């Protein structure tokens, strides 16, 4: 039904895609896997003929027997949204913020079916029901900002499926969502494929997601198709070295030489805790109910207490909005708790004098999720890394530059990086620079807020290795904040599970993974894509299909 044959694409004079071929049958799901820059998104955009200006293409793209390359814009407009549709990664930006969701969904229906407004809104209501947003709870008059990320992605899916397209392209549809929402959205996509018999192209960098969802898989790198075949066979056989490398990286667990420090261990408990969190709550004001009636405050963090001992590696997991990032900000003294105390080395941050606060800050540093946003784009690397040195008072220029070079060396980068701007580095390199910045004051505690979520799998494995190595070399204590249990499993010894501002479960990583008790922990564990499990399921169903075909 859909076939790309020897598609080559160049933008300007830069070749982007080289001889890409793939095909898709109705009712099937095709996965395109690859790291950033592999050309997987541009392959999808060529199919929709939504390429940036200055692109030249050759080869052929056939859709229901029709050649799309070089097709008239008029024909494409007819096809787009009607017979072929697309879902993007970022549901925050893919919806128009000034129109209600009802208007946005029915717009496409009216355009393509030429029916009246009432009829269209009837269809819209049915669609919203189908994607799990019952209109009695989510009326058509809602605006995108009144919905959460997962709900917005459902609206996007409703828009894309309004015309029962023959082909749906989903470009990293769940990358911006946390694992439980990811599982729900993938489930929805799968059931829509089964119901409407459309073909789905799922683009993802996450092998586990692709393994769970797809029938066939295409592995791309640098604009070329490296490996192609049925999902189970490809991922079980791992014949191609690059596929093998990807699979290895995505379930990578750093090797460690030192035993973990656990709070259940009596010896560790005798040490003084590095960080003590005592009954900490944080309330945010909400909109006033009326002129004389203040709104009931929203409690983002609710009576959280725990201790963190030197050398521990603690994971703080939960769905988005559970309060884990708010807690991290309070620990870093960027936000004040509404009640309760946070102490670092026995000094309470809440009523510390400036000198004590400086000392505490020197002792804890932070690594953020997005390596692109966490640097001032106008400073060079030497200045960026040296920023926390401010906490140590005046240092001579010589000493400063020596410290910076040492920090860079520790994260495995060369001093020639010093004279460059952050945009000259890749995501993985930037995250290394971010870690160097965090290390420069020789802190005892590193708070990492989703430090590898924005990275490709192979880079992610490298950064995890680096973090693990640094912990052993420098005796660091980690507080890891994440919704991705795979990452937590790779690096944390103990895990706290948060739900609605409260800590609902605490245990060693194995306990939480193998035997989750609370509802929140169960949901997280169930939703986390697991490559091994997915491949096993995939092989079973492929075998069954072969049997039924005979």
């Amino acid at each position, binding site marked *: 039904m859909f076939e790309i044959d020897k598609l080559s694409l160049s933008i300007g004079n830069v070749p982007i895609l080289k001889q890409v071929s793939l095909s898709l049958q109705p009712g099937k799901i095709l996965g395109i896997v690859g790291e950033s820059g592999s050309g997987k998104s541009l392959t999808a955009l060529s199919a929709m003929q939504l390429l940036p200006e200055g692109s030249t293409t050759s080869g052929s793209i056939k859709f229901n027997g029709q050649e799309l390359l070089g097709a008239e814009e008029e024909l494409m407009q007819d096809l787009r949204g009607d017979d072929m549709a697309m879902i993007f990664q970022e549901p925050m930006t893919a919806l128009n913020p000034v129109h209600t969701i009802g208007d946005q969904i029915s717009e496409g229906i009216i355009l393509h079916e030429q029916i009246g407004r009432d009829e269209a809104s009837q269809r819209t209501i049915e669609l919203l029901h189908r994607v799990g947003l019952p209109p009695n709870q989510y009326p058509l008059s809602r605006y995108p900002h009144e919905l959460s990320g997962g709900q917005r992605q459902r609206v996007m899916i409703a828009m894309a499926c309004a015309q029962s397209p023959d082909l749906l392209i989903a470009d990293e549809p769940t990358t911006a969502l946390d694992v439980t929402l990811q599982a729900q959205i993938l489930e929805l996509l799968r059931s829509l494929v089964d119901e409407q018999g459309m073909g789905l192209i799922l683009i993802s960098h996450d092998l586990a997601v692709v393994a769970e969802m797809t029938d066939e898989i295409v592995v791309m790198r640098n604009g070329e198709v490296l490996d192609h075949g049925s999902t189970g066979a490809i991922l079980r056989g791992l014949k191609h070295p690059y596929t093998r490398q990807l699979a290895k990286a995505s379930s990578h667990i750093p090797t460690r030489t030192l035993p973990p420090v656990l709070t259940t261990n009596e010896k560790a408990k005798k040490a003084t805790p590095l960080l003590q969190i005592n009954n900490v709550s944080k309330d945010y004001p909400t909109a006033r109910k009326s002129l004389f009636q203040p709104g009931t405050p929203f409690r983002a963090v609710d009576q959280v207490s725990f201790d963190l001992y030197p050398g521990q590696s603690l994971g703080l997991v939960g769905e988005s909005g559970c309060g884990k990032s708010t807690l991290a*900000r309070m620990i870093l003294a960027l936000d004040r708790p509404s009640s309760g105390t946070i102490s670092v080395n026995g000094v309470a941050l809440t009523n510390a004098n400036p000198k004590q606060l400086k000392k505490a800050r020197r002792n804890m540093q932070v690594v953020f999720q997005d390596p692109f946003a966490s640097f001032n784009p106008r400073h060079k690397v030497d200045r960026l890394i040296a920023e926390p040195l401010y906490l140590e008072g005046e240092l001579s220029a010589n000493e400063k530059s020596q410290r910076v070079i040492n920090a860079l060396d520790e994260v495995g980068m060369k001093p020639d990086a010093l004279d460059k701007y952050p945009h000259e580095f890749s995501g993985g390199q930037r995250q290394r620079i971010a870690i160097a910045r965090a290390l420069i004051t020789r802190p005892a505690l590193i708070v990492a807020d989703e430090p590898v979520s924005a990275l490709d799998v192979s880079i992610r494995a490298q950064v995890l290795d680096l973090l693990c190595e640094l912990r052993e070399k420098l005796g660091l204590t980690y507080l890891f904040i994440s919704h991705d249990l795979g990452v937590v499993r790779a690096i944390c010894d103990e895990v706290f599970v948060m739900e609605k501002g409260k800590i609902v479960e605490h245990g060693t990583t194995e306990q939480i993974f193998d035997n989750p008790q609370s509802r929140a922990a169960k949901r997280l564990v169930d939703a986390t894509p697991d490559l091994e499990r997915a491949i096993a399921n995939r092989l079973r169903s492929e075998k069954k299909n072969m049997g039924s075909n005979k």
Partner: protein
Amino acid sequence: MHSFLSRALRNRSFFIGLIITLFIVFIAALSFLWTPYGIDDQQITTVGLQKPSLTYWLGTDNLGRDLFSRVMVGARNSIAVAVVAVAIGIGIGVPLGCWAAARRGFLDELLMRGNDVIFAFPALLSAVIITAIFGPGAINAIIAIGIFNIPVFARLSRGAALSLWTRDFIMAARAAGKSSARITIEHIIPNMANLLIVQATIAFALGIIQEAGLAYVGLGTQPPFPSWGRMLSEAQTMMALAPHLAIVPGLAIVITVLGLNLLGDGLRDVLDPRLSRKRD
């Protein structure tokens, strides 16, 4: 830097705007050293009004003064007023905006509502008030236009600073224990420099128009010193007899403002390619 220049010069509106602006600045600078005739010299021999000719390139006015010389000196006057007025706007408005964004809460509200009050007075009205108190003159025109510029820059910088404050790299600087004043100087202001530069060129063009407007109603530069705005108002009574008296300063204003607007437009496209409406 080199790549910036070559990229900038490829942008057509930037290039044309730059040439016009440089030309006007050159004329203004030249007027310090040389003008064809003294600006107050009355060419009695030729008696009053002269049409443009080889001797008097743009003609003379009713008092027999060479128009070209007066336009040259008028350019100097317009530029000086606009530059100082923009400097006042940036010098006071940007710190206020940044302060409001850094402190938030009550102070923010107070500063911004104060801003709204200033915004509510057109420059002309504040000039009338200032003139009523201190008397007319170029300095008072500068102050009036400068005051008008303050809320423009305060608002712009507050908005930009607010969005910058939520960025991760600002968080990192805060985690490094830096004070908000230091973060503002090191991180916030350099990152909104683009916006400020573009707004400054536009405010500069506006300043020239406002100066001309104030001079036109007699609140700006006082005679006999030439000013484009007053030349226009003086030409009014002789429109039918000698239209060039009005056309020449009018064109000078239009060309200068056009040049500056093109420059500002081009600068925005060059400094922030994401806002560019067309591809190069």
